């Protein structure tokens, strides 16, 4: 008689939403999602115990400006990324012009430059004392030029930094749509331009909308760029409330308003994603591009080249020149300490993100169902929550826990004021929440490729649990796990507000150094740490571009 197990343990959970005892996998998934839920709840609960004078001060002097600044920023960046992203995607996906194949991947490169780096380079170049205006003055005498440090300037920089989100997803949409629908429209007597406006654009709308929503989430989350431009938004206000007014409750209240904006965007994004499935009309076998006339072709080349130069080439060259100049004095032991801290934190953060992503994905595989999908969705919503919000939302409960522990330990003769507060815990938790979606996306895609019959085949041949994991799943997931770790590594390296607000004493990173130098207007000295960040950021972009080519 072979070994037997009791059947009771094997029966799958009955109803999906039944109030049965959760399985251990569900418990793990719920714990991971609590990492997101707790900070959000903590932030909203701050309304209960407000400090009246700060609140009324804020309502009178701060909030109106923050709201109008945020509104104009979202509107401007929304229009900017839509125009740049859609036009470039259409040209590189559907038209043939000189340099198309180069630009189709090169236009992704700006993803490697964080918006805050582009911001100080652009200011350094275009400010009153910058090389451009100085040169113009020498030729034409005193001039009255528009100020770069303005609302328009922030919008321009953010649009240039964030358009790749729309470009990438819209290009994908245009290419997978194929030309079938477009050719059908042309056979019905519609010309090329009308075909774009009446067929291709409406079909790609859900994709474009999702890309724009992502770009707007990044806009809301941005701290570095608006700080450099002195353009107050909620993220900078949260920072000031915490570190200048020392009011965590004011910071939380500001954060809670920001979260409301974010949630609206999240809902809009998920809505447009759910519309994507209606958007595909049969793939045409060959993807033939529209051949532009000579004149139009060169116009297209010129336009893409201008965007590429402003968003990537010129800033990169300027950055390298500055870095080279500053390198003589700044390439010292302190610099290498920043690099070391950045690598160490990014590595540790990437490891945690990948591990949590694997657990969450595995939980979904072991316990599939609607409730698990919901839990996974909540757990990965952190990508939309600005780092400044997470910093506050995680610091408060950890500090509370710290105080409880100290109170509990004091009678036992323990002396000290902080157990967890001075550690990396807050920062790593915030990284994990913010970047879990990045890791999960890749790990989950890898898990989906392992079909159920692969598991079953291994099981009938005697492989179970650990042996299944080590002999089948880990080898098959190796590439996905590596991608998850690499992507989150780079994202953490670029991250500014979480690091700035929650780093323990002495843990200055490259991004923190950039913030310190830019807040003193030392563009040259900010360039050196920026170069390291951009170089790291190039890796995933090259990966993304090469994958796009294969498609």
């Amino acid at each position, binding site marked *: *008689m*072979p*070994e*037997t*197990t*009791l*059947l009771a343990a*094997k*029966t799958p959970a009955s109803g999906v939403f039944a109030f049965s005892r959760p399985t251990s996998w569900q418990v793990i998934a719920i714990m991971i999602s609590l990492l997101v839920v707790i900070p959000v709840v903590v932030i909203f609960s701050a309304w209960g115990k407000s400090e009246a004078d700060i609140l009324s001060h804020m309502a009178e002097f701060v909030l109106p400006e923050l709201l109008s600044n945020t509104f104009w920023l979202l509107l401007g960046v929304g229009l900017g990324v839509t125009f740049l992203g859609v036009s470039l995607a259409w040209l590189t996906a559907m038209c043939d012009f000189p340099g198309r194949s180069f630009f189709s991947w090169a236009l992704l490169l700006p993803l490697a430059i964080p918006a805050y780096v582009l911001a100080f380079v652009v200011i350094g170049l275009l400010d009153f004392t910058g090389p451009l205006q100085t040169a113009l003055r020498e030729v034409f005498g005193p001039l009255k030029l528009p100020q770069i440090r303005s609302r328009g300037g922030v919008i321009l920089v953010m649009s240039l930094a964030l358009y790749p989100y729309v470009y990438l997803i819209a290009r994908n949409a245009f290419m997978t749509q194929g030309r079938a629908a477009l050719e059908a429209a042309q056979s019905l007597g519609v010309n090329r331009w009308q075909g774009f406006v009446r067929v291709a654009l409406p079909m790609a709308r859900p994709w474009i909308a999702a890309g724009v929503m992502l770009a707007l989430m990044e806009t809301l989350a941005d701290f570095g760029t608006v700080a450099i431009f002195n353009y107050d938004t909620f993220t900078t206000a949260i920072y000031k409330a915490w570190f200048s007014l020392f009011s965590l409750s004011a910071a939380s209240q500001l954060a809670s308003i920001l979260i409301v904006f974010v949630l609206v965007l999240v809902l809009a994004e998920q809505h447009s994603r759910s519309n994507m499935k209606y958007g595909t009309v049969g793939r045409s076998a060959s993807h033939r591009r529209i051949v532009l006339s000579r004149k139009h072709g060169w116009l297209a080349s010129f336009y893409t080249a201008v965007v590429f130069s402003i968003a990537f080439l010129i800033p990169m060259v300027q950055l390298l020149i500055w870095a080279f100049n500053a390198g003589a004095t700044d390439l010292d032991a302190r610099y290498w300490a920043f690099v070391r801290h950045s690598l160490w934190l990014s590595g540790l953060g990437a490891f945690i993100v990948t591990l949590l992503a694997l657990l969450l994905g595995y939980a979904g595989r072991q316990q599939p169902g609607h409730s698990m999908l919901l839990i996974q969705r909540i757990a990965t919503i952190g990508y939309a929550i600005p780092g400044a919000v997470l910093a506050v939302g995680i610091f408060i409960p950890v500090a509370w826990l710290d105080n409880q522990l100290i109170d509990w330990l004091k009678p036992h003769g323990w002396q000290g004021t902080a157990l967890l507060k001075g550690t990396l815990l807050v920062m790593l938790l915030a990284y994990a929440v913010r970047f879990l979606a990045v890791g999960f996306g890749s790990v989950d895609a890898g898990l989906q490729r392992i*079909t159920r*019959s*692969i598991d*079953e*085949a*291994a*099981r*009938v*041949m*005697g*492989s*179970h649990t650990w042996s299944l994991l080590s*002999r*089948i799943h880990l*080898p*098959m997931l190796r590439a996905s796990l590596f991608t998850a770790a690499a992507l989150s590594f780079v994202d953490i390296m670029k991250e500014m507000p979480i690091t700035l607000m929650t780093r323990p004493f002495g843990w200055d990173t490259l991004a923190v150094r950039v913030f310190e130098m830019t807040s003193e207007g030392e563009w040259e000295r900010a360039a050196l740490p920026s170069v390291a960040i951009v170089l790291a950021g190039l890796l995933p972009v090259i990966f993304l571009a090469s994958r796009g080519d294969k498609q």
Partner: protein
Amino acid sequence: MSDLKLVRISQSYGPRQIIDDLTFHLQEGQIGCLLGPSGCGKTTVLRCIAGFEPITAGHIEIGGDVVSSPARLTPPEKRQIGMVFQDYALFPHLNVAGNIAFGLGKHDASHKNQRVEELLSLTGLLDSANKFPHQLSGGQQQRVALARALAPKPHMLLMDEPFSNLDVELRERLSVEVRDILKREGMTALIVTHDQNEAFSIADIVGVMHQGAIQQWDTPYNLYHQPANRFVADFIGQGVFLPGMVMNNSMVEIELGVLHGMIPTDCDATGCDQCAHDCYVDVLIRPDDIVHDDESLLMAEVENKAFRGAEFLYTLKLPSGTRALSLVPSHHDHAIGERIGIKLAVDHVVAYRRLS
């Protein structure tokens, strides 16, 4: 090798009964097949035998050991069953030899290599030992899946729609090849398919399934010529039902004449003297039951024809207006609308009580 016994097993998913009181016995070394339309529960039976699904009544025995019952369930990895999956489920990160060796467990390396070698030659894959699954054709992948399942010398082999991902020509060739391999290994095997040609070419014994129950567990020959009920008669092969009237327990009259033979009908034929006048039946007439005969006085009109190479399948309109099928050697090429002579050549009378 072991035999397989399913005794009155049932399985339900919520209120839905998937398997309903199902029993069959597969002898040691026999190749059995569960045949049925999609959704009849045949794959679920296979998964119950493998141990992926629990059962709610009855029990399953492999080689005399009870492996499944409502109270106890031996996990799949303890059953020593080989399984070939519909999508083959080859491990993409292992090469052919690695896939075959996967289930060989803790044997020493030389023993493993020897067994892998054996299977590579058995399945004709010696040249592909170092290739990876994505470098193989569909037929080769199928053979790797079979070799991998046979390698650990399982008690028996289960195959879930093993040929459905292959094109028709390859399907026929491979099913003969696979039967050969299984017989050489003396393997007890159970195959699930919806394709009767496949079932007939590979299996010794076939169970026709419908609505979670086995309608008939029999040889392919008997399924075709002596279907146990109307569903089996309909599902297996081609044919039409012609109205007939029972005369006595060895004679039934239809439009085309009187048929002699045992009348295996659910009409109470034993005392059929009483029912002679009201026992109307439907008689199954296969295309090979009607033969073309130019001499015959019995004429039918050709209504449609399909060229099959060696023969034509004619759809005939009988004098009464009912239709029948007839297989005719292909040198008898008649035009549509032509009237041709036919005669009956029925060996086995299959009749069911008329549905009123």
